[in-house]
């Protein structure tokens, strides 16, 4: 076999998953080839020019803590930053940013090109090279063959992508870009179960044709919170976004034209994400709503293009233009790019292990939308994990597995590989039982250690992390030891503020648990020798204290209810021999191969009876040992 080039790891696709995968793999010392259809579109955001949001922002922080790049790139290219849920508890606060779409791409490419051992190549992968049953490389459309031990497939929406606009359907991975058809055939030929999903995107408008005064401005935060732990502050000027609404007139027009929507004409077979519904969906399912919210998101400082968030559609392009003009403030608006729906193939993520490697073909990893997820952040964290593990695989080192108790990435991966997907999977805080422990501000505490162990976290980052941990420890101790006494000058004032008796002497940590006590107040009560105190450090420590009790109660409840969770299930257990399990349940267990009773318990479709049976079996096995 002769290869034109040989790498350790090949990554197919330079989207959010692919970029993280390639960057991590290369920085772990594996010679990595990143192959993409179009080098000018590395790091392209397919629809919403934004990163983060509730739970998604958490993912970006975790990526950053592990040594990934998304956080840094968005910090440098973001044009509006907001910390969501400021009024709520710290566990559910999450950063979000609008990006300058062009600059994001440029910065992502620049970052990759500055990474040694990372080799960018333009081309279309159409097949794998398999030598005596082993993965050996990839074949490109132009005839080149690249060799490698591991391959990460991060093809996004490109696998057999089919774009729908009104009655027109054509092949494409994204508007203006070709689909990857052959690769999908290869995966099917290898026996992978392939399904179909869909997603959609709204029209983009010419900002000069919008009457901005008709919309409600939504400014960024005064003091924006960065994504990356390595970013001290964000200095760039921020833009405004704007909020608007559809009208009944728009809704009526949409309803009158549903036959022209591929979604409703039955042309589209794939299942779409519930949480990215098209405007057609919204108008049909929630017909009692007289208006639906829209967000106008400028795409960058150097362009007039505006993203019309909330108006995802696959109605005909001419109709989109008419509909847009019915929205107050957009009477003169011109559509630059119409919205569309896209159907694409995905591979059942139950084919993967916790390292995102396929069990069917060792060395082959899948990351991103190919696994049935939706969202840039969801894709990126998978890319990071897959890239790390692909490199570790070639170096014959133990893989990195993340648990759901310690990270949202762990929740996402476990959900995917154990449950599969019926519709595009998006991360929510409610998917994490341990939501209170997985905060955006403690991602470093939870994960930076892994990043350092792997070698992805550099010295300056590690020093910064340790310095922060040390400051946190000092603060924690202070909160325990510093007390507010009746004799103190502030005691009366604080008592009046709380409206309750504080006793003769109360520690600051106890005081912090009372309602109406905020970080500012605690800050003012801390001794002068500790200052200056970083407000975000204090917030983190207070958050730990706030949630500690709840977490203990939760752990106790779960331990009591699920006391058998840690009971191990021996590999190769023949579930079919366990008397009392139905065929369907045996099949589910065989597919999922749970390693502990806890994993089995979380599998969908396992009845309480079946679980009792399994538990009885495992207990009996244990006794006979």
């Amino acid at each position, binding site marked *: 076999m002769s290869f034109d080039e040989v790498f350790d790891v090949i990554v197919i696709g330079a989207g959010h998953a692919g970029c993280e995968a390639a960057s991590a793999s290369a920085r772990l010392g594996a010679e990595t080839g990143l192959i993409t259809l179009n080098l000018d579109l590395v790091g392209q955001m397919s629809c919403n020019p934004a990163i983060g949001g509730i739970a998604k922002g958490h993912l970006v922080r975790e990526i950053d803590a592990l040594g990934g790049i998304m956080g840094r790139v968005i910090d440098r290219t973001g044009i509006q930053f907001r910390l969501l849920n400021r009024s709520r*508890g710290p566990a*559910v606060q999450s950063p979000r940013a609008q990006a300058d779409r062009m600059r994001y791409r440029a910065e992502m490419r620049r970052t990759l090109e500055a990474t040694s051992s990372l080799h960018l190549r333009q081309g279309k992968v159409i097949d794998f090279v398999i030598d005596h049953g082993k993965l050996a490389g990839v074949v490109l459309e132009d005839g080149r063959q690249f060799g490698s031990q591991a391959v990460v497939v991060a093809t996004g929406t490109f696998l057999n992508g089919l774009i729908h606009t009104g009655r027109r359907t054509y092949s494409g991975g994204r508007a203006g870009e070709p689909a990857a058809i052959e690769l999908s055939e290869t995966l099917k030929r290898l026996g992978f179960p392939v399904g179909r999903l869909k997603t959609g995107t709204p029209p983009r408008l010419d900002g000069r044709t919008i009457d901005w005064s008709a919309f409600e401005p939504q400014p960024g935060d005064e003091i924006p919170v960065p994504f990356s732990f390595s970013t001290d502050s964000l200095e760039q000027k921020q833009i405004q976004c704007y909020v608007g609404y559809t009208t009944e007139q728009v809704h009526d027009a949409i309803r009158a034209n549903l036959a022209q929507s591929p979604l409703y004409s039955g042309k589209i077979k794939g299942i779409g994400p519930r949480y*990215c519904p098209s405007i057609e969906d919204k108008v049909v399912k929630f017909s009692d709503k007289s208006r639906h919210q829209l967000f106008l998101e400028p795409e960058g400082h150097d362009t007039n293009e505006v993203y019309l968030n909330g108006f995802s559609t696959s109605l005909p392009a001419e109709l989109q233009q008419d509909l847009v003009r019915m929205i107050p403030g957009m009477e003169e608006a011109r559509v630059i790019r119409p919205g569309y729906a896209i159907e694409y193939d995905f591979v059942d993520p139950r084919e993967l292990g916790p390292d995102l490697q396929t069990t069917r073909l060792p060395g082959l990893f899948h990351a991103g939308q190919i696994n049935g997820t939706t969202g840039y952040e969801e894709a990126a964290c998978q890319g990071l994990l897959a890239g790390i593990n692909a490199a570790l695989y070639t170096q014959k080192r133990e893989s990195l597995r993340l648990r759901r108790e310690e990270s949202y990435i762990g929740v996402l991966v476990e959900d995917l590989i154990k449950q599969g997907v019926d519709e595009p999977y998006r991360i929510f*805080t409610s998917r994490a039982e341990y939501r209170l422990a997985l905060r955006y501000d403690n991602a470093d505490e939870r994960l930076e250690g892994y990043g350092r162990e792997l070698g992805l976290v550099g010295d300056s980052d590690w020093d910064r992390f340790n310095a922060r941990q040390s400051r946190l420890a000092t603060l924690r101790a202070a909160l325990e030891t510093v007390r507010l006494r009746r004799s103190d000058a502030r005691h009366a004032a604080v008592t009046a503020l709380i409206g309750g008796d504080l006793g003769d002497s109360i520690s600051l940590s106890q005081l912090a648990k009372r*309602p109406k006590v905020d970080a500012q107040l605690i800050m003012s009560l801390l001794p002068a020798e500790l200052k200056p105190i970083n407000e975000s450090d204090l917030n983190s420590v207070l958050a730990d204290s706030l*949630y500690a009790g709840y977490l203990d109660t939760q752990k106790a*409840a779960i331990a009591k209810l699920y006391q058998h969770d840690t009971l191990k299930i021996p590999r190769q257990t023949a579930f079919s021999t366990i*008397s009392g399990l139905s065929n369907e349940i045996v099949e589910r267990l065989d597919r999922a191969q749970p390693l502990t009773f806890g994993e089995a318990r979380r599998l969908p479709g396992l009845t309480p009876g*079946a679980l009792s049976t399994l538990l009885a079996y495992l207990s009996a096995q244990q006794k006979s040992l």
Partner: protein
Amino acid sequence: MNTIVALSTPRGRGALAVIRLSGPDAIAIAQRMGLSEIEDRKATLTTLTRPKDNEVLDQVLLTCFRAPHSLTGEDVVEISCHGSPAVVRSVIDTTLELGAVLAGPGEFTLRALSNGKINLAQAEAIRDLIAAQTDAAVKQASRQLNGELSVALGPLKEKLIEAIVVLESALEFVEDDLPAVRVQEIEKELAKVSTGVEKLARTFAAGRLLQEGIKVTITGRPNVGKSSLFNSLIERERAIVTDVPGTTRDTLTEAIDLEGIPVILTDTAGLRKTTDGIETLGMERTRRAMGDSDLVLVVLDGSTELGPSDHDLLSQTENTRRLVVRNKSDLPGFAALSGCINVSARTGEGLTTLRSAILASLHNNGVEDGSLLITNARHYDLLCSTQRELEAARAALREGHSEELVLAPLHNALRFLGQITGETTTEDILSEIFATFCIGK
């Protein structure tokens, strides 16, 4: 999956015995033993033979139930044969020879559970049903078997999930145009759930009494007629009755059925200070039995003046649940007193009143007649845990804490409830959210 066989009726001699087979080979085995035509659910007179030597085993009534419409959800064959242990043994042995396997304890129920024919609460009810000692206990267990517990908890669980859905949506979909959370409404709904759970939990005391029986201890100083009373209540001679005080050296216990409620009566040694070693041992047991009981009958000799031992006993039992019984109403000199139950163990006078009074103590739990009772300690424990978490959530809500702090105990509550009725997954909640609110950009 193997085919199990078991004797479903109690061991011993009787007119009939019922043997059940469940599993993929049940019908095939029946056919090999002599069943020629199979009509689903039709009791067929069949002669069973042993294939290996064609020996006739018995003439039986055989019924087939094809999966999934059977007890276990598998193919089930029910054989009603003559109730002789020898016949039973040979029929079962034959099935074993044909490939069946002896069922483990509860295995039929386990299969019914695995195949979703019954839920966990019902399976436990079956167990309780089999263990039930009286009609009323049977009735309660039957109700649970009919899913009444799950039904009673259903609406409560729905309300809980509704509250969770609203709170989750508020914190997750911040940028969507959702109606503002009405905290007072949520507080009201959670209060309703709390009340419902508490009501059910409270029935446990009565339920346990129903399942295990009211423990009634008969106490009183020597020779007031405790043992006579005991015998009268159990309606046959049991205790040794003599004229010498202190003849009931031990405690005697017997269960009686009072209108379907099991009552466990304990007759004790007369409480009297004495130096006789054996006597003191009996009295120690007496004191323990008193401490252990749900109701104490303090028996007095109504025909004589109250002595110091009587007064001691009355003051000792002042704060326990008790009935004061004045015995020997047939004797002259008997003074009836209100507030006491006047009986004559010898003639039977007043015993009906006494029996009613014993039953009344059960009803004093504030439980309506005919209501669903929680009889299972596991369920009681789970309901208490649920209640605790609901209280915590309501407190967090009242104190104005952020939603995730209200949700943490609500999710705990849901987990505990789920242990009785079946779990609610994140997917279930997400589906509810998306069905309720228009979300998404």
